[in-house]
C-alpha cells in the first residue's frame, strides 16, 4: 500500500472552542490507483489532505490521534526536516486556484526551474531546459517560446497545466489534487482531467482527487470516499456507489444534482445545512438532516459497517445501510 491513513483526527483550536474538522478518517491509496474524496465545504476533505502533505498550520491545528503511513512509514512521527524530504519528492499537491498559487512576478520558467536549481544544483541554463521539457510534457504548446512568460499571460487551463508540471517535476509517487478543475470551464476541465489521468498511468502514481463534483469523480476514480462532518460515511468502488448508495447522505447528493440527460421535476434537496464543527450532533452527524433517522441514530455513532468484503471492500457508516441500499 502506498498511503494508508488510519483513524486520523484533526482539530482546530479557535476562540469559540475546538472545531473538530476530521474525526477518525481511514483511507488508502495504492500505486496507480485513484481515490476520490468527495464532500461539501467544511466536510474535512481538504484538511485531511493537508495533514497528509504536512502543510497544516499547527497551531491552530492539532493532530491528537492517528497514523499516516506512507510506504509503511508513519509520517506523523517524522521530524519536520525528514518530512520535507518526502514532500515534493515523494508526494506533491495540486491546488485549485492556479493563479494565486503561482508567483506573479517570476516567469513560469523561473518558477519551474527554481526547483532544479535549489534541489539539484543545476545551472540556470539546464534548469530552463528542464522547465521547457516539463511544459512539453503537460502539453503546453510552444513551450520554448512561452517559458519566459509570466503567469498572467497564460489562460486558466494552461496555468493549471503549469501547476501539474510543478507537481510532477520531481516525479512523486503520490499526487494530491485539491479541486484541480473546479475553476475551469467544462471543455478545458475535460482536457486537464485527461492529462492528469494520462500522466498518472504513465508514472503509475497514486492519485487522491479531492472534489465536490460527482460528475468528475465518476469519470476518473477507482474508488470513492464520501466525507461528512469530518468522517468518511461511505467508501466504495466507483461503480457500486452510483448504482446503489449505501448511505442516505450519498443518496441525497446523487439525487440532488440535476442531470444532463433528463429534464426532471423538482430536485431532491437535502434539508438543512451541514453541521457546525464546534458542535457536531451526537450519534450520527447526519441525523438532523436524514430522512431515515431513528432514535438510535441520535445516540449511537454508527461504526463502519462492511457492505461487501470482496473483491473490493465497501463500507457504510449508517445503522440502516441495508434499508438504504435496497431502497
Amino acid at each position: 500500500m502506498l498511503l494508508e491513513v488510519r483513524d486520523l483526527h484533526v482539530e482546530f483550536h479557535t476562540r469559540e472552542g475546538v472545531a473538530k474538522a476530521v474525526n477518525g478518517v481511514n483511507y488508502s491509496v495504492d500505486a496507480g490507483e485513484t481515490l476520490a474524496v468527495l464532500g461539501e465545504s467544511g466536510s474535512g476533505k481538504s484538511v485531511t489532505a493537508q495533514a497528509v502533505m504536512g502543510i497544516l498550520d499547527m497551531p491552530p491545528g492539532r493532530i491528537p490521534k492517528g497514523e499516516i503511513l506512507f510506504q509503511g512509514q508513519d509520517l506523523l512521527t517524522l521530524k519536520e526536516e525528514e518530512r520535507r524530504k518526502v514532500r515534493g519528492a515523494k508526494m506533491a499537491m495540486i491546488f485549485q486556484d492556479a493563479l494565486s498559487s503561482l508567483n506573479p512576478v517570476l516567469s513560469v520558467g523561473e518558477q519551474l526551474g527554481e526547483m532544479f536549481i535549489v534541489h539539484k544544483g543545476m545551472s540556470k541554463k539546464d534548469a530552463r531546459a528542464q522547465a521547457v521539457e516539463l511544459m512539453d510534457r503537460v502539453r503546453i504548446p510552444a513551450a520554448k517560446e512561452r517559458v519566459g512568460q509570466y503567469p498572467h499571460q497564460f489562460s486558466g487551463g494552461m496555468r493549471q497545466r503549469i501547476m501539474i508540471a510543478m507537481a510532477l517535476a520531481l516525479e512523486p509517487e503520490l499526487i494530491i489534487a485539491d479541486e484541480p478543475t473546479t475553476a475551469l470551464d467544462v471543455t478545458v476541465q475535460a482536457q486537464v482531467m485527461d492529462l492528469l489521468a494520462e500522466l498518472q498511468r504513465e508514472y503509475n502514481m497514486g492519485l487522491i482527487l479531492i472534489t465536490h463534483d460527482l460528475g468528475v469523480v465518476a469519470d476518473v476514480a477507482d474508488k470513492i470516499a464520501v466525507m461528512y462532518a469530518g468522517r468518511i460515511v461511505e467508501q466504495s468502488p466507483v461503480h457500486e456507489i452510483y448504482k446503489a448508495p449505501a448511505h442516505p447522505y450519498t443518496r441525497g447528493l446523487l439525487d440532488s444534482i440535476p442531470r444532463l440527460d433528463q429534464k426532471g421535476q423538482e430536485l431532491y434537496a437535502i434539508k438543512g445545512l451541514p453541521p457546525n464543527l464546534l458542535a457536531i450532533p451526537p450519534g450520527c452527524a447526519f441525523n438532523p438532516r436524514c430522512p431515515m433517522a431513528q432514535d438510535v441514530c441520535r445516540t449511537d455513532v454508527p461504526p463502519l459497517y462492511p457492505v461487501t468484503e470482496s473483491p473490493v471492500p465497501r463500507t457504510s457508516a449508517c445503522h440502516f445501510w441495508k434499508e438504504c441500499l435496497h431502497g
Partner: protein
Amino acid sequence: MAEAILEVRDLHKHYPLTQGILFKKQVGAVKAVDGVDFDLAAGETLGIVGESGCGKSTVAKMLVNLEKPTSGSIRYKGEDLTKLSPRALKAVRRNIQMVFQDPYTSLNPRMTVGDIIGEPYEIHPEVAPKGDRRRKVQDLLDVVGLNPEYINRYPHQFSGGQRQRIGIARGLALQPEIIVADEPVSALDVSVQAQVVNLLDRLQSEFSLSYVFIAHDLSIVRHISDRVGVMYLGRIVEIGTDAQIYDHPTHPYTQALLSAVPVPDPEARAHRERIILTGDVPSPANVPSGCRFRTRCWKAQERCALEVPLLAVPAVFRLTDSPARHDSACHFAEEKRVVPPEDSLPHPVPLEEGPAPAEATREAESEAAAEAEAVAVAEADEAAVRRADAAADAEERAGEQTGEPSGEPPGEPSGEPPGERPGEGTGERTERRPGEPPEEPGGPKSL
C-alpha cells in the same frame, strides 16, 4: 411561443482598447458581445450557457442597464430601453431585476438584511410607502424561506445558501416581471444548490416571473430552462428548446460542450462519445474571421474562414420536421446526439420520503441559521491556510532526482489550425471508453 416581453436584437458591447497616455487613440476593441439576438416570452425561462469570457455576463448586465450597449436594441414590451429618457428608463427598470452570482460580495456587509432588501424601495418609493416597508421585507424573507425575524441581522450571520436567498428577496422586492440571474447557484454546495434551484422554480410559478438564467453548468440550465441559448465568443451559436439543444444539437460547439460535461454515472461512460476540444477560446479582442469557432472546430473548411454563419435554421433541416430544426449558426450543421437517452441508463431508486416539502426545508434552515456562521468562518480559515501553504510548498519540493524519461512525443499542441478535411481534422479527438481494462500492467486498477 407566447408573446415576447423582451426582444433583444443585434446587441453589441465593445470595450475600446486605447494606446498612448495623453492622446489616447483607439487601437482595437474587445468585442465582449458581438451581435446577440433572442426573445424572452412571458413566464418562460431562457437559459444562456457558455464558457467564461463568452459574454454571457455582459449580456446580463446590459439587460438590467448596468452596461450601455454599443449598439443594438433591447425592447421591453415594445419599448427600446437603449433609447428611453432617464426618467422613463427608471420606471421600466423596476420590472427587470437581477440576482448576482456571488452571495458573499453582492451584499453590503454593513447593512442589515432589512436594509438590503428594502433598499430598492428608496429608489422606487411608489412600490411601498415608508410605513409599510418593514412588513414587506418580512414577507419577502418568508417567501424565500428565511425566518422573518432575521430582519435585523447582518449578511455574515448567514450561510452561502441563505445569502443567495437574501439576494433573491432583493431581486423580488419591486415585483419585477423579469429576473436576470447570473450564475445564481455556482458558488453554492451541491446540496444547497438544489434548495435554491427549487426556490427559483417555486417563485417562478408563484409570481409568474420570466427568467434569463445564465450559467456555465449545463445540467442545471437544462433543469430550469424552457429554452437554451449557447454562446461562444460574444455570439449565440445555437438556440432552441431544451430538448432540441440537449438531445438534438446541430452546432459542433454545442456538441463538444455537452460531451465534455462529466455525467455522475460511471455506466454512462460506455454510452458516451467524448469530443475534446483542443486549445482555448480565442481573445475577444482578436476574433477569428468568418465563423468564430473555426479555430477549434474539427469540421472547419475554407468557407468557414470567409463567411460568417448566420443564426438561423440550417438549410438541411429547413424542410424537415425533426427536432434538429432550430437555429444554429454553422455552415455544416449536422445532428449528433452526444448525451445518451435517459432510459438507457440505470438510476438509483429515489428515497422513500421523496422530495422534502418546502415548509420543512424552511424550518430546518431557520434552526440551523445560528450554526451557519461558524461553519462559514471555519471554511474561510481553511481556504486561507491552503493558499498560504501553496507558496511555501512550492519552495519545499526538495528533490533527489529529476531525470526525465525522454523521447516521448509532446502530444498534439492545442490551439493549432483546424484540419483540412471535414470530420477528421486535428481538432477532434473522440474517445470511447467502454470501461475496458488498461493495457499496461502498471495502469490503474479496473473495477
